[in-house]
């Protein structure tokens, strides 16, 4: 054999070795010198891990410290996403966890595959685990790498559905809110207030996220705590709502609406022809909805605010299916059925005769009339500013008083001044003022009305407030442009519009809350206040007191909002105030004129003793679409004349008939309750929500309706 040939071949082998080693050597050198820094950076970036620390949301109390919104600690088992990234690891962890937390492996895998969980928090595999199970898992943390127990808070409403519209509810952050909440440093997975105080006070209630920053090893296991910023819990919010009165108001509101559905409005027949063809002789009131609001007119605090139909705000945290949710809260275009609106601040209403108080004020303030000016009410008013031939061509020139039940004709009140016109609710008196204002200056009346806050937001600390509308050229033009009015309607304010406005009808739109603020300003001597439901913010962690109560005496007030800023002070000297207050007082007590009672007299003469809080008030009957008698909405506004009980109450019942028959009894009952003359049911914490129930809220009914009794026998319930 030729050894040299073999040597050559071995040389080739050696050469291959040299080449391969060179490759390895070059690559090694390249990685460990040239790329070393870059690779080090790529490793260091992932060397810290942030664990967000959730703040506890502030609680919501009523004026007495009842806990209206509380937090329940929920322990959730979560697994670090890093640990789940690999299928094999995941299967292993899920397999181990499955028995401990009683969740099928497939269910956990489904959660892993779905994209609804935040990548910044461990993936929750089971919510609401028992404390002992959580501890058991933590004790075996060696066997459950990456498994952690998260403390979360669930919102509970111990007194639901009371004050549901005021307290509100929580929900997921919507797409439109994304940016806003991201800027505020929220985790977009959080639930936030979506209605009521939960929404309006969101930032105060929420608190601020804290975090723990860990240095982690490459396996993402914490090695060392680098930094801890504890979360700042949210402020506790005390409301001015007094749940005793709130419950009573909700009960009387719902009870009266249900009662009103038993009554009918008569379809008037003229010479055998029904005034509204196609309808039966009598039509039941629908009375689908209503609201009541009670304002402390000295401080601007809302003591009670009820809206019907109402809901149980626990549904929003009950984890119900979307089908169930739609069953409870059907999507509807019918405003009668809307549940998730607070009608007291969102209702867009005519105010009917309750508005006359402000028109009377405007006339006195503009010296259109004096307290002693009398006008002869003949049951109707004919416009003076429009020629007879124009009137003959079909333009409406004659405006009638409302119908008197005893003869079916427009009521005739004879000689009335401002006081009497308010007491008996003479339409003709105010029609005349409406025309005179229009002739004196197109915005003269409007300017005075707006002083009371009409046509602008009251600024209440509740969301979605409706600002209302005082009809003028501009607003009418907007309505015409929007196509809301009949086609061919002039895009400017006509004298007829002004006449309608003067009795609270036509294009006027206002909320019950605005009405309450307006009456409050009459009651308190001219202070138009910003109403508010938040009484105080407490430093986080007001301790519990008796069951269902927080002990406010142990809390520290962070910010008091006892007394609200006044929007403005308006002239309210005796020359302006006395005729109004006297008229409103006489509306309650009588006597009337011309043989007619005042509108609330018959109600208050039954069961409203002298020992009850003396009140002054005004009824209103707002005509609905089509002017059908059975679509009349019922309004009543009243304020206490006792300076130690400075309350103004407004009730508005939709499609429920005359103000004196629908809304006024509710207000009467509330004042009787405030006077301590009727028994109110004690406020109790609610039973747990039954997730199978189909009732959107537990019914609220008065045990005793005798406070609603009236001597007015003008209508009778149908069987």
């Amino acid at each position, binding site marked *: *054999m*030729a050894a040299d*040939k*073999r*040597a050559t*071949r*071995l040389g*080739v*082998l*050696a050469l*291959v*070795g040299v080449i*391969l*080693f060179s*490759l*390895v*050597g070059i*690559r*090694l*050198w390249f*990685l*460990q*010198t040239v*790329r*070393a820094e*870059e*690779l*080090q950076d*790529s*490793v260091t970036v992932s*060397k810290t891990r942030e664990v967000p620390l959730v703040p506890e949301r502030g609680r919501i109390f009523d004026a007495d410290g009842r806990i209206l919104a509380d937090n329940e600690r929920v322990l959730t088992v979560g697994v670090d996403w890093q640990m789940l*990234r*690999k*299928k094999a690891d995941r299967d292993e962890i899920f397999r181990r966890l499955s028995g401990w937390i009683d969740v099928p492996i497939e269910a956990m895998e489904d959660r892993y595959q779905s994209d609804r969980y935040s990548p910044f928090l461990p993936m929750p595999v089971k919510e609401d685990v028992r404390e002992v199970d959580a501890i058991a898992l933590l004790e075996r943390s060696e066997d459950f790498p990456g498994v952690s127990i998260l403390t979360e808070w669930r919102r509970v409403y111990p007194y639901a559905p009371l004050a549901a519209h005021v307290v509100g509810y929580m929900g997921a952050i919507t797409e439109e809110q994304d940016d806003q909440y991201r800027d505020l440093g929220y985790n977009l997975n959080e639930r936030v207030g979506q209605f009521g105080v939960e929404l309006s006070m969101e930032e105060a209630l929420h608190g601020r996220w804290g975090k723990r920053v860990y240095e982690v*090893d*490459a*396996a*993402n*296991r914490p090695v060392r705590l680098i930094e801890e910023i504890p979360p700042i819990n949210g402020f506790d919010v005390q409301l001015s709502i007094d749940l005793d009165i709130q419950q009573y108001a909700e009960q009387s509101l719902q009870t009266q609406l249900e009662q009103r559905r038993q009554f009918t409005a008569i379809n008037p027949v003229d010479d055998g022809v029904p005034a509204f063809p196609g309808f039966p002789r009598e039509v039941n009131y629908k009375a689908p909805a209503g609201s009541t609001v009670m304002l402390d007119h000295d401080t601007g605090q809302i003591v009670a605010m009820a809206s019907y139909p109402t809901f149980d705000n626990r549904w929003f945290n009950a984890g119900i299916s979307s089908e169930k949710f739609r069953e409870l809260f059907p999507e509807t275009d019918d405003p009668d059925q809307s549940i998730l609106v607070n009608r007291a601040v969102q209702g867009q209403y005519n105010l009917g005769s309750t508005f006359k108080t402000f028109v009377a004020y405007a006339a006195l303030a503009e010296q259109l009339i004096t307290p002693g000016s009398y006008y002869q009410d003949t049951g109707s008013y004919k416009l003076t500013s429009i020629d007879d031939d124009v009137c003959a061509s079909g333009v409406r020139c004659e405006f009638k008083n409302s119908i008197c039940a005893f003869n079916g004709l427009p009521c005739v009140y004879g000689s009335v001044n401002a006081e009497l016109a308010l007491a008996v609710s003479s339409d003709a008196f105010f029609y005349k003022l409406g025309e005179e204002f229009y002739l004196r200056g197109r915005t003269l009346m409007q300017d005075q009305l707006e002083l009371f806050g009409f046509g602008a937001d009251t600024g209440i600390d509740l969301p979605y407030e409706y600002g209302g509308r005082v009809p003028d050229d501009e607003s009418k033009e907007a309505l015409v442009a929007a196509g809301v009015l009949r086609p061919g309607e002039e895009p400017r304010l006509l004298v007829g519009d002004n006449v309608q406005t003067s009795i609270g009808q036509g294009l006027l739109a206002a909320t019950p809350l605005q009405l309450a603020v307006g009456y409050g300003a009459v009651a308190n001597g001219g202070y138009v206040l910003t109403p508010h439901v938040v009484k105080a913010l407490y430093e986080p962690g007001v301790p519990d007191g008796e069951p269902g109560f927080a002990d406010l005496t142990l809390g520290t007030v962070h910010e008091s909002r006892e007394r609200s800023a006044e929007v403005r002070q308006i002239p309210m000297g005796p020359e302006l105030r006395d005729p109004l207050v006297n008229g409103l007082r006489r509306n309650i007590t009588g006597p009337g004129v011309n043989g007619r009672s005042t509108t609330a007299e018959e109600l208050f003469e039954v069961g409203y003793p002298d020992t009850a809080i003396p009140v002054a008030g005004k009824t209103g009957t707002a005509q609905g679409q089509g002017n059908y008698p059975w679509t009349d909405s019922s309004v009543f506004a009243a304020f206490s004349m006792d300076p130690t009980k400075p309350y103004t109450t407004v009730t508005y019942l939709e499609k429920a008939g005359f103000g004196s028959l629908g809304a006024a009894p509710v207000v009467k009952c509330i004042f009787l309750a405030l006077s301590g003359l009727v028994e109110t049911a004690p406020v109790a914490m609610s039973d747990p929500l039954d997730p199978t129930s189909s009732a959107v809220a537990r019914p609220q009914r008065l045990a005793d309706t005798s406070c609603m009794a009236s001597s007015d026998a003008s209508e009778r319930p149908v069987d």
Partner: protein
Amino acid sequence: VTLSFLQRRPDSGLGNIRASPGDPSRNIDWVLMLTQYALTVIGCFIVFSASRTRLDDPYAFATRQVVFAIIATVVMFAVMSVDYEWLKERARFLYGFTLVLLALLFIVGQLTGVDRISFDLGPFNFQPAELAKFTTLLVLASYLADERSDEVSYPRFLGGLMLVGAPTVLVILQPDLGSASVLVAMAMGVLLVAGAKPRYIALISVLAVATVAAAFIGRLVNQYQIERLRVFVDQETSNPQLQDAVYQVRNAVRAVGTGGIWGKGWLQGPLTNGRDIPVMWADFPFAAVGEQFGLVGASVLLSLFVLALVRIWRIAHLSRDLLGTYLCAGVFTMLLWQLFQNVGMTLGIMPVTGLPMPFISYGGSSLITYFALFGIVQSVHMRRMR
């Protein structure tokens, strides 16, 4: 079998003159042996550093590795003590035994529906593919050495090809592409030295590539092997299915790179201590070396391998007979290839296979195989004077 070199008689005062200079026991290549043990000791430390954080008992793998090394030592000395000519006579029997084991493994795998690369023998797993490295080399070298010519004739080349092909195909079917590549590399090395024409070598290369391609196309390989190859082709892929495979390699490269020149220090490597590199103690021990000891440490380690290779190469040169040369050439190629493959995949220049790093990786089968292979090299060296 007599372990004669262990039974040296007491010194009679005149030096060990009873043994002739040609006595095998006086011709052990101590440099190679020291190198080999240095590598093995380093390997035990590396296994410890790469596995301690992931075990209940941090010493579990390192201890077992020491036990393996002791067993491997016994095996090596047994191989050293017998003449490789003696082994040659039993080559066919050993080869046949290996084929039976491989086939048995394949049949068991087919019956149970689970891919198998090892027999579970209680305390440890026995991988017939490791045995195949030894016996295939033995049978191939014996077969080629029978032709006393400078060049390999075509018929003999084909015969050699079939001898290597049979175990290779069975190993591919396991599927263990890494071990199969070692067999192919060994065959190429031996055939090259035996005087195969370049076109024969080319033919083997083509056959090897074709077999691997067929395995991939015929879906004989596992999903993870396909993923590994795809990752190797596109290392920056963002394909979520490939993230596990990408992750492994990326972290191995990071571990080596972050070691820098001097390394992070013994047990100070965050990636080694972490769990980012799966089965690091077996598949990526070089990453642990790179991270803890840096360029300097890795170079020292590689130098030891170079030293071992040089010694083996030298023995191939020194051998008086073809068999010895072929055996050494085979061991040389296997070690070279397997080292390159394992280190290459750690550095991201080779696709990932399960091939362990000789002497360093945790694992009894691999360690015993290389001890046996080095034993046969020693045997050649010891008997070169014959």
